[in-house]
């Protein structure tokens, strides 16, 4: 088990390195740089050079990368060229919002998908199945930003049940926080729920055809025990894998959703960084999100081992 984790961690290293390289290369392609954007109309060569020198942008690109990487390894992702704030600090400020958004979306997706997917598989070909599959395809097809707009229109604008945007910190006003989060979490989570419904249904169908399930029935298990104990845990294995991948979607989708709902999370930070041509920040966001994605997948792998004993001992 320790070897398993260690192996996963070691495999993640070249990928992390690759992410940092991609992030670095990409932002170097962006036309205009922090200096030009900061100075805007007041740009002059001399002042631009001065700012670039301050930020180390006058060095050759490989040198810049080496410096940046060595600092990143010690936990310093540099300072935002635009606000002067340390990137890690900006990320830390924004992280709770995205975390809450993503985890609420996942929670919503799981709560919706697992029972629906299971019901669909058990009642294959009947109306619960059709319902689940319709949700499964439709949820994938509705653009989340459109859904967000419609939700705002309906719940915030027309019914006045929820605020239409902005973020209230959980500790400042838990109820307000919940109210600001519920619509974005739904808009973001629906597509994930759709994917999970489909996965859960497929894996449940697979499990339902397994010999050990027939065996369990032959033992005298009732439906609750049959589906809830014998089938559920086995069906969870592929669902977990897909969930890990979907977290990537969540991190990306939160860019759009945070923009629609005006939530100051990592996604909005990325958009601001792009808008402000904030190299260092954009790099930091991409590396951070990539790292988070890898770690989440690692966590999923650990969960996987918990669900699937063969991995635990193998």
């Amino acid at each position, binding site marked *: 088990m320790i070897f398993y984790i260690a192996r996963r961690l070691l495999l993640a290293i070249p990928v992390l390195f690759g992410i940092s390289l991609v992030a670095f290369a990409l932002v170097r392609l962006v036309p205009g740089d922090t200096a030009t954007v900061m100075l*805007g109309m007041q740009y002059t060569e001399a002042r631009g050079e001065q700012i670039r020198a301050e930020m180390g942008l006058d060095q050759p690109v490989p040198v810049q990368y080496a410096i940046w990487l060595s600092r990143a390894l010690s*936990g310093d992702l540099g300072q935002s060229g635009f606000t002067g704030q340390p990137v*890690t600090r900006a990320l830390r400020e924004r992280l709770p919002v995205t975390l809450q958004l*993503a985890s609420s979306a996942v929670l919503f997706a799981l709560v919706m998908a697992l029972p629906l997917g299971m019901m669909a598989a058990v009642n294959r070909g009947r109306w619960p199945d059709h319902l689940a599959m319709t949700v499964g395809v439709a949820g994938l097809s509705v653009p989340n930003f459109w859904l967000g707009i419609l939700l705002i229109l309906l719940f915030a604008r027309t019914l006045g049940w929820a605020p239409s*945007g902005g973020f209230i910190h*959980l500790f400042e006003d838990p109820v307000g926080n919940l109210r600001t989060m519920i619509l974005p979490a739904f808009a973001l989570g629906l597509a994930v729920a759709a994917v999970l419904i489909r996965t859960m249904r497929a894996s449940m169908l697979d499990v339902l055809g397994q010999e050990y399930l027939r065996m369990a029935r032959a033992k005298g298990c009732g439906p609750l025990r049959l589906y809830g104990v014998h089938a559920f845990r086995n069906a969870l294995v592929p669902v977990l894998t897909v969930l890990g991948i979907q977290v990537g979607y969540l991190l990306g989708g939160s860019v759009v959703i945070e923009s629609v709902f*005006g939530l100051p999370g990592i996604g*909005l930070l990325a958009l601001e960084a792009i808008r402000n041509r904030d190299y260092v920040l954009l790099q930091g966001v991409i590396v951070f999100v990539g790292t988070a994605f890898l770690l989440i997948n690692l966590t999923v792998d650990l969960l996987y081992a918990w669900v699937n004993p063969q991995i635990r001992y193998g």
Partner: protein
Amino acid sequence: MTRLHWIWCPAVFLVLAGCSRNADPVPVTERDAARSRTNELIVAIQSDAKTLDPHLATDAASMRVIENLYDTLLTYGSAYGTLEPGLARSWTLSDDGLTYTFQLRTNACFHHTGRPVLADDVVYSLDRMRSSGARSSVFAPVSSVTAPTPHTVIVTLTTPLASLLAHLAHPMSAVVDREQVGAGGLKRADGGSGPYALIEWKAQQYARLKAADTAPASLRPRVPFLTYRPLPDETARTTALRTGEVDLLLDVAGKDVQSLQQVPGIVVESQPGTFWEYIGLNCTRPPFDDIRVRQAVAWAVDRDLINQLVKFGRATVLDGGPIPPNHWAYAPFTMYPARNLERARALLAEAGLADGVDVELLVSSDFPYQVKAAEVIKQLLKDINLRVTVRAMESGVFFHALGQKDFTMTLVGWLGFVDPDEWLGLLFRSGALWNQQGYGNPEVDQLIEQGRSVTDRAKRQDIYRRAQEIVALEAPMVFLYVNERTSAHLADVKGFVNHPTVTTLSLRETWLDR
């Protein structure tokens, strides 16, 4: 706090979502002490402030937060165009019009250090503005600033500058705490002595201010807490006002005015503003290096249609010069009374472009209404065979391109403040910083010089009328319209004055009737 270990555990955080809270320098008690909806005014702003350094800020959002944190020597009066004492309780002008002497009030203190504001600070701040700030050019005629006594500041000019006082009253001509500048800069800190002091600025969430303890009782604002909330989405902003989440909207879009007016409990105030928009034509590049092509554009544009479609008819069309009718220097002439395609086509044919030409129109994607206007212009110019490609860029890159004069055609706005020089001198004088069009006309240059040095208002009015006529005729810019300034607030917000410029100084006199 640059250690990375917290990055390693987002997965754990995912489970404890929202439970993580930020370590913050400000203690919770102070941040939240006694704050409630009865003593807090929440203002929705379009975007978050970019910087809190008054000398660097160029965007309205930053200015709105900054102007309440800082004092200026003079301030705008509530009647448009008037000036009132600020830090300077009085001032005198020498007879040659070259030396201003300001007497400072003695009860101003910086928030952060508690230090009294002295003449040295004013000198430091003015020098800082002159040397590097965003508005250094307006102070070009200033030759020196000195502080003979702790409460006396003398500003010496090389030539008379009629607009100096107006420039000094500009909210960004703030007096800053040099100790704070030295300690960590002003980008994210409060180095001011104004009516409000910064408690906390959380990017994209809020900037929270409270009535400054250091301010004398007579100048202390009536609402103890002032919070700015950035809500980039127009719909979200109006919704927030309707639901009472915010008290005050400063920029109400034309489309929302009508519907907000019908909401009980919401007061909408409109008046002609000073933010005007134009098509900038690069006079140094073909095809607009030819005056006839520029004029053709001016004739081909249907200002009323753009106003109707983009501004819901709520803007005031500029068919003459750029200075709006509510300004004393307004010039009541009409240069382009209506769209005239024949004339436009004829001018183009004269310029040898009867078959048309391809041009690129640069806009900032951060201002959707300008993008929309650009789309309309594209269609309008199609009728004279000017084939326009609209290119939208993020504002930073956009303004950089403008600054480098790296464009052919653009659509953008200009925010006028008080002095006519701010409309003309900054934009049309040869080589002026904001003259991206590369326009140059010796006569205009001379008129602008004249306008600066003459202090008599009637004479200046004539000078600026002449300048506007030339500029409108030669069309380095095609003036479109000046926007209405509309604010909306809950009915129990009292005493707020909707100013034609962006300033919100009246917030210190505003109170909540709750």
